[in-house]
């Protein structure tokens, strides 16, 4: 099973959507995709497609980032100056837009990580209340 990562705008039903059954998608909170992007860029500058690939590879092919969510997210992060963008020439002589983390983005990433950990801890606590009681 593949989870599509993203949060969709309401859009008309298009043929390709039928390929991935809706119930198989993991709809994530908006901040989550940002977190994934920022974390991916932690390991070095990448272009848009590279980011999507990296997220897929690092999640064991489980999380597939939807382009319709990726690019708006990248542009939003760029506008907020958490990531910077640069045009570079690729090996096959193409202009490629490469994103990299800024200092502000790095700070944001730590914040987001803390928040994420708090949430997962909280959710884990709810799911396993007994465990918590057993650990006085």
């Amino acid at each position: 099973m593949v989870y599509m990562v993203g949060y969709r705008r309401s859009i008309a039903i298009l043929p390709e959507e039928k390929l991935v059954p809706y119930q198989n998608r993991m709809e994530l909170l908006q901040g989550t995709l940002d977190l994934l992007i920022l974390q991916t860029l932690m390991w070095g500058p990448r272009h848009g497609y590279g980011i999507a690939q990296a997220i897929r590879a690092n999640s064991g092919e489980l999380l597939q980032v939807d382009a319709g969510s990726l690019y708006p997210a990248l542009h939003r992060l760029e506008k907020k100056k958490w990531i910077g963008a640069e045009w570079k020439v690729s090996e096959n002589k193409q202009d490629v837009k490469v994103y990299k983390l800024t200092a502000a983005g790095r700070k944001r990433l730590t914040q987001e990580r803390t928040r994420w950990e708090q949430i997962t801890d909280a959710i884990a606590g709810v799911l396993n209340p007994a465990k918590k009681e057993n650990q006085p």
Partner: protein
Amino acid sequence: MKQWWNWRKRETELEKEIQHHLQMAATERGERGASPQDAASAARREFGNVPLVKEAARDAWGWTWLEDLCEDAQYGIRMLQKNPGFTAVAVLSLALGIGATTAVFSAVYGVLMNPYPYPKSDRMVHLTVQETIGEPLFINLNGPQLQQLRHAASIESVAAMDSWDLTTTEGDLPEDVQAVYLTSNGFDLLGVPTLLGRGLLPSDAPEGQDPEAVAVLGYKFWQRHYNGDPNIVGKKIQLVHKTYEIVGVTRPRFTWGDGEVYLPLKLTADPVRAYFPMTRLKPGVTRAAATAELQPLLEEFAKQTPTHFPKHFRVTLAGLNDHFVERIGGTLSLLLAAVGLLLLIGCGNVSILLLARGTARQHEMAVRAAIGAGRSRIVRQLLTEALMLSLCGAALGVALAYGLVQVIVNWLPEFSFPHEAAITINLPVLYFSIALALLTAIVFGISPALQSARPNLSAVMQANTRKLTAGVRGRRTHGVLIAGQIALTLLLLAGAGVAMEAFVRMIRVNLGYDQRNVMSVGIPVHDNTYTTWEARGTYFRQLLRKVSELPEVVSAGLSTNATPPNNGWQTRFEISGKPAGEEQRLRLNFVTPEYFIVLRISLLQGRIWYESEQMRGAKLALINQTMARKYFPNGDAIGGQIRLPEMKGEPPFQLAAPESDGWFQVIGIVSDARNDGLRNPILPSAYVPYSIMMPMFTQILVRTSVPPLAVLHAVRERIHAVDSDQQAGRNARDLESWIQHEPEWEQGHLVATLFGGFAILALALAATGLYSVISYAVSQRTSEFGIRMALGAMRRDLLLIVFRSAALNVVCGLLAGAALTGILNGVLGRWIQGSSLNVPILLGVVFLLVATSALSCFVPARRASSIDPIVALRYE
């Protein structure tokens, strides 16, 4: 512009980025063994809807609204191109309104809002004093007084000004040059840099020495006399045989004192010599505080030089523009209100057209709504279309305004606005027009947009387009708009009627003198010439005799200060044997006996003085009828005696006959002639021999057998023959033009003409509006009329139906307009002096409107009644 480029750049970058993504995905699939075609389409499929992704990405930057706007604008332009008739009428309606409003606003901005180029001109004040009655008087101070004024606590700086008519002595005939002498700190106080060279500096008038012979040229004089020679600085100019070095040229808006040349002035200690003070208050000092400080100071000055001050006065500091605001502010506000009405009527027209078109576009709107356009989105689109219209209207309007501004500038009363004012279509005025365009788009666009954006989907989609009658709702809105237009037009027409009636009454006024074929030639006397009473008297008589010798001259007389229709020196007088009231004043004129012949003012009783009496300065006086009636009601005027206590000479400037403030014998009564303008009642006046008081100027009134200005050159030659330095004043004009330069004439002319023009435009716009509504209603009801005719209705019946539908709206409009006019009558009466609304004007205006309305209804009504029933029933 920069934003636009950014936007374009982002657009292409986004495209490139997405293409790259697709390529990478395809390549990877290809490496895994897919055929290139399959790889590409799979990559695409995985990516999703490309435009949608783009839009989502663009959203992140907040650009969608701009895209939408561009689309709407493009669509709007296409719509306007498709309906050229509609577009032309709408744009023209708006252009007339916006153009007229822009032009009048440019005058308001130039005269009232930004009249002066001098920095911080709000701190510059005129020293004026107020007597118990009458207008504030300007005060002149002598050298020592000015020095004292400089030390007042509330005053930052004081400069002094003096002005003289000099002449260039280079050409064949001396040419009059208006010279303004400024103390060397004058340019500094005014604070405007020069265009070329420099202004006057303290070193130009060193303490205790004669000033340097340097001159700064006024911009207009530089243009006129030197054709704007850019290398003028350093050249010489000769004025009354004295050579000055030209050191600078002022900027176009620097017209202080209407000077043609500015020369350095040295203050003298001579107590008689008085100068016009220019005062700048310290920052933060209120006028009230300054007035309180200056009152005792000026009272002290009045004791030193009583002839320079009225007897009792209160100091009133006047801002530079106060006088002009009082004179022309009301007129300009009135005109602005008039063009505002015109603009509203134009907006009404466009609203009507848009509403009519909105009904025709119901289908389109319904489709838009059906495929998911939100209401606000439709309103936005319709408003964008309205904005396109109003911007086109504004562009055309500004072009029209260029022409109209010139007319306004030419017709503004010459001395009722500061000559520094720049009345042009400048940047602030353009901003105003753009704001106006936005505002009008909202005013005329919002109601049609809201109505069209609320389509009743199912009704429209299912409805057969063949309808028998139009909806009631649309008609009601139309009715209100028509009534509103009629009401505003009535108001405008009534205002124009009042203004025109007042003006016509003014130009038909009985003058009491014969102004035809007479001109007045001013003679300014140069400083230090003809300084004795005998010499100046002889000189003036010589000038008069020489001019009289010309064959074309029928008669000529001196009229020092007596050129009608606003003449004489207002002064106090006493009557022998009667208690003198403080407020008892007359208009005193210094003339020769020929004056009455030239102007054909008849002698009613008694006699006129003889030449010999005049030569010795005999104290004889003629009075006018009003004076005789008012102050000698028993018919005992002749033989009576009057005294003019304020009449004292001030040599070497004002040369008075001996004992000029003694008793004058009244020897005759002359018929009344206008002496306080065209509107005010004639004031009591007296005429005394010119030799009683001779200032630094006189005027010769010349009646000619040919158009007088044709003789002007010959007259100037005669004057030149007596004294080769003597020029004639620049403003030698015939008496018709003296009348037309009266402020009330100019103001009446401006208001009546512009108001009349605007009212006619309003009438045309209202007629167009009515015509569009009726035409539209008729076309909507074609099928209905067809049925009626098929059932036996006569043409007359159909005409009646159409007329009746319009009549209600028109009558409502007329009633509302009449009520509005009644309410605003007070305001109108205040600004258009000398007249107010009366019944004949109102009836005339109503008749005009009814006739125009009937005509605008008649054409479409006739079309309706000549419908062929067969055609009508098949009409889609």
